[in-house]
């Protein structure tokens, strides 16, 4: 029976050991012999398109089946869990921000940000909605009830961020969180994101091409052809 870290453990350290993801034809898409991240730190992943950045993020989130090796979050080896248990683990520990927002267009901003209120216990619903509203307002969204299909790209991204932050998870995984924003908005969102995760002690892993965002990370890794080629503090070119 694999050990599962309790939801109360805020800020988890992660260790990837001999992690290999293969494509349908057996080709290696990602190979990480060892990568360790301390709890409460932030990691930026960068590299050229097709390098395996999103695959690595999905792998860390336990979204990919049949991954070889081990991915420890705290004491929990995510790869030893069944799909249902990985889903449960994500529900308890991992907040996700997707590159394409992946919002429910016909729902309002607040309903999207508090999406998990639909399936958490009734006792937690009111607090979750309240917290999501506070985050949305803090992120500068004026009309929290507006359907998200009427919002700009920047506003939609903020709703997606609020959705990830609303449940106060110990891990935050973000895929190009600033890609659709202009410089000013991207910097503003970066400030908010960093402030939030530091304040909450969350572990943040983000895939990005955004130099400003990467430079604010505690550590960065560069991926090329599915392999880590550089692992250090990001230096602005």
């Amino acid at each position, binding site marked *: 029976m694999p050990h599962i870290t309790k939801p109360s453990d805020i800020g988890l350290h992660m260790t990837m050991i001999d992690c290999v993801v293969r494509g349908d034809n057996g080709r290696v898409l990602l190979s990480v012999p060892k990568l360790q991240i301390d709890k409460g730190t932030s990691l930026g992943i960068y590299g050229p398109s097709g390098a395996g950045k999103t695959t690595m993020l999905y792998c860390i989130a336990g979204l990919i089946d049949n991954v070889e090796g081990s991915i420890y979050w705290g004491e929990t080896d995510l790869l030893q869990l069944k799909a249902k248990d990985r889903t449960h683990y*994500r529900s308890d520990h991992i907040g996700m921000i997707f590159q394409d927002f992946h919002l429910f267009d016909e*729902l309002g901003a607040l309903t999207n940000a508090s999406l998990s209120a*639909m399936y958490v216990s009734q006792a937690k619903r009111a607090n979750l909605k309240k917290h999501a509203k506070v985050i949305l307002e803090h992120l500068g969204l004026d009309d929290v009830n507006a359907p998200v299909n009427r919002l700009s790209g920047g506003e939609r991204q903020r709703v997606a961020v609020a959705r990830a932050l609303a449940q106060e998870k110990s891990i935050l995984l973000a895929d190009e969180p600033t890609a659709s924003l202009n410089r000013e908005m991207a910097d503003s969102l970066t400030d908010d994101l960093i402030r939030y995760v530091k304040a909450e002690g969350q572990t943040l892993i983000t895939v990005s091409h955004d130099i400003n965002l990467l430079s604010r990370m505690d550590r960065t890794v560069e991926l090329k052809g599915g392999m880590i080629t550089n692992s250090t503090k990001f230096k602005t070119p």
Partner: protein
Amino acid sequence: MITFWDNLSALSQDFVLALFLILPTLCIGASVIRGYALWPLVSAIIWRFRGPNITFILLITLSVALSLSISALESGLRKGIAKSTDKFDLLVTAPGSETKMILATVYLEPIDIPLLSGEIFTEIEAHEKVVMAAPLAFGDSYGISPIVGTTADFLTHLSDGKIKGRMWQTSMEAVIGTLAPLEIGEKFVPSHGISFSSQNGAHADYAMQVVGRLPPTGTPWDQAILVPIEAVWEVHGLANGHAPNRLDQLGSPFDAEYFPGTPAIIIKAHELWSNYALRSEFTRSGTSMAFFPASVLSNVFKIMANIRKAMSVMSVLTQAITACSVLMSLIIISRLFQRQMSVLRALGAPTRFVFAVLWSYCMSLLTIGALIGAFCGAATAAIVSHFVSLQTGILILAPFGWGEMHYFLSFISIMALLSLLPAFAVFQNSIVEGLRN
């Protein structure tokens, strides 16, 4: 258990069966949706893919409406036809096809049938077991209304004594069926023959006056104009059934010697069981034939029941094909929002929640389609039965009854079970693949 069931009233049995049929849906719904607040999401998905959803709902509507309206119409038609023989306990005609005789007498179809002699009629009329023996005479018409000659006793029997206006008192007076195109007090001249083949003016000297109107009977007799049988015979230059010294008499008793003949005699016996004795007594080879119209129709319905059984098998097959089509459609439609389901799974939504969203979505479409289908089916059955009633004169009521309710609930429950499959199908897809779509 069987005894307990048998002791329940028909209404209780129908109610219990309805509960039993909807139980699977309630159980699935309760176990799948319990504890979730998913309706904002389900309604958002329905709205987002409204085009395909409306098409799907229309298909379900059509399927349910057709099934329910055909079932209601078939049942209504059967009941309507059966009810139209209520006042025709025992019929005596010349030997021949019983069905043909029923068509001519009960349904007033213009069919040539041979006549019975005055001797037979007077023998029946005088029989100790007979309360009423009514001769019929056909052949004339007014517009589309057939003119039927008979006796006042039969009219009283047919209308249960509830004639508006009054009964005829002379052979120049008539009582009309509720749908006949005349009013009380109006005069009319009978045409020789029926409908299109009638000869206007053939009986120009015989202007008759309407003095009464029958209540609705729900049979072709509602279109008829009823006159004393003596009038029909007199119009055609025949003896009027009575001896010359009693020419003004209307109705029984008739004189065999002056009786021109009748195609059919309607008999009402003192006791129900007497009908069987009378049937045997007046079924005479080459002379007369006595039979129960309801029994003949019952035999026809038995044949129809066999056809219905064969059709039921076909109907079950059709429904199975429909169910497969619905299932395939649901799986195809649910692929439309594979991305949304993958997002939920990636965010850590419990498997049962994703399952509940899909199941609720499918059930919403099916229930909306089935409800609209039930409404359209009821409307179609009502409209078609109205036109068939107008065409045949037989009152056909096709309201939705427990049979249709049971069909509806069975449909919902079968679909509730089938809707689990698209939900299972979503979990066969990879989350990452769904997110990248």
